[in-house]
């Protein structure tokens, strides 16, 4: 802090500190806290209280409708037929006394029901308030299907990570140790250009490849392995591989860069020394290059895995409903389709926990310390 003040002076240092504090509070701590708190509150769907709340909603609506009818008379459609469901302002006459009495009677009955339900609701709420509000039920109540989805998502993310590692290690090696400055610039440009395009556009571009009448099927048609005429084409979206390919493509830079960065710090003499001592290529990689590159590989794997496991847009856009949902899509549905933020929070926190476990597992496998990762 003292150093910061020396470098930037009081006003800037204060500004920085406030910004950091705001960022920490409102973008990290508060949302995370809110999410965890939500996830620990189980919202019962289908218990008596929920039913009462729903019933009350219905009763209030009925009461309103009937009162409206009492004032405005029966509604009617254009043919002049009485239609009690319609509440338009075109009045089609008036109720008889008998009808009015009947309606008033009904309103009274509804009001009575409402009254008794309100009492019951109040009692139930009071009882609930007495209970301890937190439980792990949001976590434990995950259905078998959702657990299977979660398992599959993690497995796919692992596969994506492995494929990306297999693809990126040679690329990083070529960039860091085997190419002159000009070649490196060209390769980097080639790597970067696709990333200048918006991520969604990049994903959509793959639709052109996988579409029914897309590139792959057209090529197969031309080669005679498939036929548009006989409707014998492959529906690529149906294969999980399609999602994997696009995920690898989308997150490849996050694997290439950490590996490249650490590999570039390797003293080329080490490689030459190993070769001079008679080591073959694979041994040079296994004994000299990979041990040096471990932190980069670990960071690359962690980033790729977290991004793949948390990817929403890729499975959403590529599968178009033709494959089982990914876990991220389930989370989305919990939040925005069934309005169950509590369970949604629990699901996303579960995914986060798995990612954290993965980080530590990777660090253990590669024997990398947190301090090395930070470099």
């Amino acid at each position, binding site marked *: 802090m003292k150093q910061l003040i020396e470098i930037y002076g009081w006003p800037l240092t204060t500004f920085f500190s406030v910004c950091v504090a705001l960022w920490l509070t409102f973008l990290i701590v508060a949302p995370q806290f809110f999410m965890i708190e939500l996830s620990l509150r189980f919202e019962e769907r289908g218990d008596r209280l929920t039913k009462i709340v729903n019933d009350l909603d219905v009763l209030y609506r009925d009461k309103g409708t009937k009162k409206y009818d009492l004032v405005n008379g029966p509604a009617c459609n254009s043919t002049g037929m009485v239609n009690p469901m319609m509440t338009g302002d075109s009045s089609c006459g008036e109720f008889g006394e008998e009808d009015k009495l009947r309606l008033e009677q009904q309103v009274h009955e509804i009001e009575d029901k409402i009254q008794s339900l309100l009492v019951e609701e109040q009692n139930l709420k009071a009882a609930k308030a007495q209970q301890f509000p937190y439980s792990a039920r949001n976590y434990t109540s995950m259905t078998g299907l959702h657990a299977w989805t979660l398992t599959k998502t993690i497995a796919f993310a692992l596969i994506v990570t492995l494929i990306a590692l297999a693809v990126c290690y040679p690329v990083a090696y070529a960039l860091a140790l085997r190419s002159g400055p000009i070649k490196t610039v060209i390769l980097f440009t080639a790597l970067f250009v696709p990333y200048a395009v918006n991520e969604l556009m990049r994903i959509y571009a793959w639709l052109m490849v996988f579409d029914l009448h897309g590139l792959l099927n057209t090529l197969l048609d031309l080669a005679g392995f498939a036929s548009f005429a006989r409707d014998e084409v492959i529906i690529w979206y149906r294969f999980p591989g399609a999602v994997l390919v696009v995920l690898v493509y989308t997150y490849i830079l996050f694997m290439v860069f950490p590996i490249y960065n650490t590999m570039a710090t390797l003293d080329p*003499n080490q490689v*030459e*020394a190993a070769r*001079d001592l008679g*080591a*073959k290529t694979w041994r040079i990689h296994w*004994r000299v290059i990979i041990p*040096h590159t471990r932190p980069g590989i670990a960071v690359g794997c962690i980033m790729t895995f977290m991004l793949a496991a948390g990817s929403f847009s890729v499975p959403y856009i590529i599968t178009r409903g033709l494959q089982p949902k990914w876990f991220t899509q389930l989370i989305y549905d919990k939040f925005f389709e069934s309005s169950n933020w509590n369970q949604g929070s629990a699901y996303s926190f579960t995914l986060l926990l798995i990612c954290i476990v993965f980080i530590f597992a990777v660090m253990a496998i590669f024997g990398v310390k947190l301090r090395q990762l930070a470099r």
Partner: protein
Amino acid sequence: MRKSATLDAGFIQSWRAATSFRATTDETSLHGEAVRISWWARAVHGKEVVLEKVSAKFGDFTAVYPTDLVINAGEFFSILGPSGCGKTTMLRMISGFLSPASGSIRIGEDIMLGVPPNQRPTALIFQNLALFPYMSVWENIAFGLEARGVGKAERRKRAMELIDLVALNGEEMKKPDELSGGQRQRVAVARALAVEPSVLLLDEPLSALDLKLRQHMRAELRHIQRMTGVTFIYITHDQGEALTMSDRVAVMNHGRMEQVDTSDRIYDRPSTPFVASFVGENNILRGRITVIEDGVATLESELGTLRGRAVAGLAVGVDAMLFVRPEALKIGHESQSDNRVAVKPVRRDMEGAYVNWVLSTGEQSIVAHMSKADDAGIDHDHSMHVGFAAVDAIVMASGELADTGRQVDEATN
């Protein structure tokens, strides 16, 4: 004895202990430790390295001009030259990391054309040593054996023998960054020797060490070379290193071998102005040749008539340079037989073992080294004379001088 080598904190001491121990066991062929070393000494023997018209090019730039060179089997051979002279390129061509643009390299009986570095009977010690930081000392040393598919137990046994040879006992489980500079140096030597090379190539391996350690490691390297009989090719820009360690020295400049000779002859009989000015200190006096007689050239200079040994091929009438070492100069009033130059004293530097006199002829400065005894009789205040024998001076046609920043005629004035 071995215990001291293991535990002693001052490793120079430990090495001394270890080497003296070995010297006795080697000579007397005792059992025990000496047997282990003799296994090793049997396993390696140097091979000669022959370069025929070897040249190297990087694009349009010629790093090494066609060079013929014979390095004898079991020789300690140094290639000495300023940075950028092509000496490292020579080394990389011999080790196989670089293909010559022309010519052929032969090691022993085998032509090395197209043979990759890992199949040559050479081992390279890098300037920064390039030890593997994630391997322990013994794994580093055994890496070459590992690459050759030697089993772990055998690998370890041989590594321990080499650790014994370079007196690193007790350090085998450490990582390179836990060792001192000199210890790392020895790991690098042991690692290179483990593959039983016929030729060991050393690329300025001492340049990262401090002066004391460097001087000590010179003796150590020389000792290892003698013991193993491996051909050492040593690259350096440090003339002290080259002169003290080597059987023969090649002085290189701009991709050409200026002179290949023993250390003594390089110093006493330089054959080009570059060698004369690069190796050791020299006073340079310029003039024109008037007479050459019985190998003695007479030079007309602004300082008068000077005489010195003529190098072969010197002709009358050419611009020439006379080189005379500071220690060959005598200061005094009594006339010296062959050459005599009037000078004024500029500075007297007490160097310890000798006294460094900076003198001025009015045109240029001359440096003379006087022993303490001779210095006592010098009258400081008056104008004086320096003299030298014709035998101590060398006259050769003017040519390129080494840019060493310590040219006598540029030093002062």
